[in-house]
């Protein structure tokens, strides 16, 4: 079933790409134009997606309890971190993210906090001071 859903999504993508590429026609001397290559790719993409729909593999196990909770929390960290990085600054944002990730992986609070201090300040010192790559410091430490 998973393969069928994925196949349907990729098939829709291929069809959309084929149609969207149609608007890219430019009348320069370039005989291929910007539309030909995407269409040449969309064709096998669509056919292979069809194959996936017709002959799917058995479903993988998508969710495994209780690990899925850790995965969702990690994904949340992955998206919250970029939003937090510039307003909060690198050391604070990194510390928070590292504490959460370490807790997900079964560290104790003491381990998580100590580890996060090492990782955040270690990387900050290494990159900002050592390599001279400016990282946002944030208002707390600034």
């Amino acid at each position: 079933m998973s393969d069928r859903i994925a196949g349907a999504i990729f098939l829709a993508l291929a069809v959309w790409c084929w149609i969207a590429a149609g608007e890219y026609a430019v009348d320069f001397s370039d005989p291929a134009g910007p539309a030909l290559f995407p269409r040449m790719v969309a064709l096998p993409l669509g056919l292979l997606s069809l194959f996936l729909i017709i002959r799917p593999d058995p479903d993988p196990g998508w969710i495994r309890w209780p690990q899925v909770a850790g995965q969702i929390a990690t994904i949340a960290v992955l998206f919250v971190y970029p939003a937090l990085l510039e307003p909060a600054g690198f050391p604070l944002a990194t510390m928070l993210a590292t504490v959460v990730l370490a807790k997900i992986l079964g560290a104790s609070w003491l381990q998580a906090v100590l580890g996060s201090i090492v990782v955040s300040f270690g990387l900050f010192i290494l990159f900002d001071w050592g390599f001279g790559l400016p990282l946002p410091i944030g208002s707390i430490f600034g």
Partner: protein
Amino acid sequence: METVGFLLNGFQEALTPLNIFLALVGCFIGTIIGALPGIGPVNGVAILIPLAFTLQLPAGSALILMSCVYYGCMYGGRISSIMLNIPGDEPAMMTCLDGYPMAKSGKAPEALAISGIASFVGGATSTVGLMLFAPILVQFAIHFGPAEYFSLYVLAFVTIGGVTGSNPAKTLLAATIGLMLGTVGLDPQSGVARFTFGDIHLYDGFQPIVAIVGLFAISEVLVLLETHHSERTGALPVNRAFARWADIKGTFGTMIRGSGVGFIAGVLPGAGASLGSFLAYTIERRISDEGNTFGTGNPKGVAAPEAGNNAAAGGALVPMLALGVPGSGTTAVLLALLISLNITPGPLLFQDQPQLVWGLIASLFMANVFLLLLNLPLVGVFTRMLSIPLWALMPFVVMISFVGVYSISHSTFDLVVMAAFGIFGFILRKLDIALVPVVLGLLLGSAMEANMRRALAISAGDPWIFVSSSISIGLYVATALFLVAAIYMAVSNRPLIDKPNEDEKGLNAD
């Protein structure tokens, strides 16, 4: 004998203090990355590429650093295979079979020493092979026009489909997904924005490095969260690797055979080190398994796969440097590094920048010597690192990915793209769709398209140009043969009626 002259020039380039230092650092970091289960060579090199890029090293030095990391990973992978029975990276899987039984029966120092020497033999042989074969391939490829290059890319994508992954349809699908992702952004020839939804962030397309770090490193973290075992058994302390000369002498033929097999497997596009070690082990077992001792701690079963995977690592550099078509996942990542440094691999690279190519080859020889030294007397340092807990390692990997990507463009948008590619990569891996073809498509798509359009411009739109030369026709015939073989193998392995076997195909399919 002009090769010798080139090589001497190469050593002049490689023996600068900076390059020696970078080679040493690369070997050291590479061995650690290889040894630690959970960060394989692709992930390790992918994470480090943004660093090499932002340190603003000269192109040659950056390439030396990353290639030494790559070679180092191949040496390091065996350590946790032998000590923990967990492969440090995928190519080291075969080394578990005989390495761990050896360690259990108290022969860990011998296993580490023999596999270390086998790695050296494999690495050195393949670097010689790279030195001899890459220029020959260049002589051949210099006659390639745009139409021939286009057919070469077609061949590369199809062979990858045939060689990697259990389901060729899915691997080919992965390549087309990558090619499609590669067309996002402004079309370089006409300036038309393609598939950008009008979002200005997407006008430059997807940065290959950002996509690679996401696809490999971040998805690996998500996979690890699912499969990790809460308690890892610690490795017994081993302070040095040691074997008697007689033990080593007995495996010497094995090492040479493994190196040859591995090198060939490495040169084939898309196969890479995992296939090299697998073939080397299987062939060696067939040749010299006296009394069924393979799998129970036969030193030859340690020597063969290690020689094989290290030789494949060097072999995979041949098509990457000579043709710009990488032979494995990690060389694809190295190609991404070269492209971001504005270097186009291929025959012209050997002509225009011989100091870069030969400097790299010379430093690979150097790296092999460094790695042998690091891995025999200092192996204790690396075995001790195996006890780093996951809760300390994984957040560090995630954070260094974030810093690396952020330091390229200083854009948080790229971090979101990286995270999105991480989830995408995780889903693809669950569906058993290989990631390497996606990356290759993304990387090579624009060159493939440019060659196609150049060919059509030369012929004024006549498509017959694609089959107008014997080289192109030969490459298409090879492509067709590969395709037929792949389909035949896929069909004969699988019954036409799908049987429900969900239980067998568990989570650890990849």
